[in-house]
């Protein structure tokens, strides 16, 4: 920060210098004071929030299990060229790892990791370790005698590949691809592809939800902005009350409304629109997710849209009308363009919130209404493939941050407003 002081004839050079120094010192002090005020929260967020996330994301490439818990064979395989079955020294290293790993109860960890690469590796490792008494020199013969797969060159290629402390295999997996033991990467068979499909579904359903919120939010905001303040404030309660109501409450009431024995179906049956046997499935599928999430996210569209519409002077539209434009032209060509900032701010906000959703899709989405967030939770809690969960997390996070960067461009950080 450069400071310039206009020199006037009244001050001597020394005084000028002193004044300059004083000024910059006081400025520096102010700067330090400002930093000190912000520092506690910055430190707090870094420690409790940013660092845990960074730490988790590292897991998407971190690969410690095999080289930590099978150190000897990992080391020995470094010099192996992968052309034919390893020699006796490498088998001996494996035997040592299996016996020591069994004793330390750590071999199961390496086995779990290797099983992600190829099914059956788990029982190969733990099964052999359990027969530790039979493992004797010459090890090559003895190990192949215990399990035939030790004579398969692919087994060794997988161990060598998974022995590196950093891996790309979780990302390969997250992109629905497979890596052969020789390191060739290709797309998985169509039937086994899932993550890209889920990402794509998450994106298009979020776009649909965003579109729905624009469709429903625009007329309401328009009405609110054109009504007198008093009426608008009262109607605003209808927007703010859902906004302030617990997400779980809203989700459960959508279950009550939409389920086959629920209120909406009862109403349709009572009205004679459908017969009692032909109740419509509106929940536990994509419809459930879209309806519930549109409802949950609608206030996030209406609020920014409303605040922008309030600033549009009605005189423009009137001017257009008086110049002979039809109602529609005046609205579409004059009014709408002025509300674009509000629409884009709301849309990006809704979209960002939507693609990261987990709770609502999990409760009302069934199979066809699940998002990528649900898959991350699945790998965190059920399949326990944390590396894959982290890799999917990185992909989701990159997507969200990219959109948020766009958002700050459009709206500016300081203009994020609530309520």
């Amino acid at each position: 920060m450069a400071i310039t002081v206009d020199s006037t004839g009244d001050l001597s050079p020394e005084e000028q210098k002193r004044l300059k120094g004083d000024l910059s010192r006081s400025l520096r002090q102010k700067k330090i004071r400002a930093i000190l005020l912000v520092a506690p929260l910055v430190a707090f967020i870094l420690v409790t929030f940013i660092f845990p996330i960074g730490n988790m994301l590292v897991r998407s490439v971190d690969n410690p299990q095999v080289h930590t818990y099978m150190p000897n064979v990992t080391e020995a395989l470094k010099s192996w060229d992968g052309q034919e079955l390893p020699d006796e020294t490498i088998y001996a290293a494996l035997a040592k790892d299996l016996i020591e790993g069994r004793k330390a109860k750590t071999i199961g960890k390496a086995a779990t990791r290797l099983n992600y690469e190829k099914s059956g590796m788990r029982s190969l490792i733990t099964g052999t370790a359990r027969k530790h008494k039979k493992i004797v020199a010459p090890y090559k013969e003895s190990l192949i005698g215990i399990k035939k797969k030790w004579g398969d060159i692919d087994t060794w290629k997988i161990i060598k590949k998974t022995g590196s402390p950093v891996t790309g295999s979780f990302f390969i997996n997250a992109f629905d691809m497979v890596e052969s033991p020789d390191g060739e990467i290709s797309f998985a068979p169509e039937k086994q592809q899932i993550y890209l499909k889920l990402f794509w579904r998450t994106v298009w359903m979020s776009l649909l939800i965003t579109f729905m919120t624009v469709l429903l939010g625009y007329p309401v905001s328009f009405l609110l902005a054109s009504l007198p303040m008093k009426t608008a404030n009262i109607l605003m309660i209808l927007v703010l009350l859902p906004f302030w109501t617990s997400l779980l409450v809203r989700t459960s009431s959508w279950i009550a409304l939409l389920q086959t024995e629920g209120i909406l179906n009862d109403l349709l049956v009572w009205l004679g629109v459908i017969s009692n046997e032909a109740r419509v499935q509106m929940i536990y599928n994509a419809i459930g997710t879209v309806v519930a999430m549109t409802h949950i996210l609608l206030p996030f569209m209406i609020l920014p849209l409303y605040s922008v519409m309030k600033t549009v002077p009605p005189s423009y539209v009137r001017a257009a009308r008086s110049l002979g434009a039809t109602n529609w032209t005046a609205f579409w060509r004059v009014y709408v363009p002025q509300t674009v900032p509000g629409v884009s701010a709301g849309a990006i906000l809704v979209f960002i919130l939507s693609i990261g959703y987990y709770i609502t899709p999990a409760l009302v989405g069934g199979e066809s209404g699940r998002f990528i967030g649900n898959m991350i939770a699945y790998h965190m809690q059920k399949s326990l493939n944390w590396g894959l969960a982290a890799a999917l997390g990185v992909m989701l996070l990159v997507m969200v941050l990219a959109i948020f960067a766009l958002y700050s461009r459009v709206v500016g950080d300081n203009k994020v407003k609530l309520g």
Partner: protein
Amino acid sequence: MKKTLKLSTALVLGSVVAATAVQAADSITVVSWGGAYTASQRGAYSDPFTAETGITILDSDQAGNGLAGLRAQSEAGNVTWDVLDILEGDSMLACDEGLAVELDYNKDLNAAPDGTSPLDDFIPGSLNGCFVPTIVYSTVIAYNQTAFAGDKPSTIADVFDLKKYPGKRALEKKPDANLEWALIADGVPVGEVYNVLDTPEGVDRAFAKLDTIKDQVVWWEAGSQAVQLLADGEVSIASGYNGRIFDAQVNEKQPFTIIWDGQVFELDGYVIPKGAPNMKAAMDYLRYATDTQRNADQAKYISYGPARSSAAPLVSTHITTGIDMGPHMPTHPDNFKTPVKKDPGFWADNKDDLSERFNAWLAQ
């Protein structure tokens, strides 16, 4: 002001932490499956244990994510669970990975009343080093009698016969049991199921069979959901844990019938996490909850077969309704004609791959 704020929050947080620390000393956390099952453990094990020792039991329902929690806690060196209820297959993984305490069965558990040692008393081969089985439970198919006016389904093949037995099905959202049933319905003999499933063609065959009912299936995740769906009439046929279905039949008088054909049974029991915060109390609880009388007592609450052979003759009647529990047990000879023993070894190896394939299949 900042200083006082910090100071006061430090004090407050400190007191909260201290409060929880004090609380932990006279209670242990037992992680189980929730619902009717936790209730049966409470009645048979926990309440009498508390009455006898004064140690209170905190029930946690996180057993569904048990292995995940165990791994995370162990990795962090911060174990908070004392006793974990776990399936046999998962217990093998936990034991292999050094997450569970290795037990000296004859020392850590009580012998049967007639003196039979634990190693001879429990189901043969089930004591794998860390695991103490308590029950045999079954995943079975049940139907709601009101859904079928005439002919009622009676075999696994009927579940896949949408023409003869129309209506939605509720199945558990994981490959286990569903793939086995698909093969059985497709004509594979019960004894051959895992041999067939171990081949890529077998897996394709199972998924192809599941394809035939896919759009009629509602997938459930928690044990009580299956019962709820069946009771609400949302589905006409559901898979479920036999004890939960029994609970609904008896306690809620639901018109359910269990199809015992092709029941997939497995063992469930306890492990003690390595590094459990209240190790001594946890071991006391383990000894208490797995002794012969307690093992038999659990069958008063829920229809799971006791894992100790000495407990089987002590199984009596249901605690509130007084009905004879024998015929409701998965191991009763009438029910045990075509059972599938879930192969923990097969699933330990293939779970990762088959789950991924299953999820991809669901998402299609």
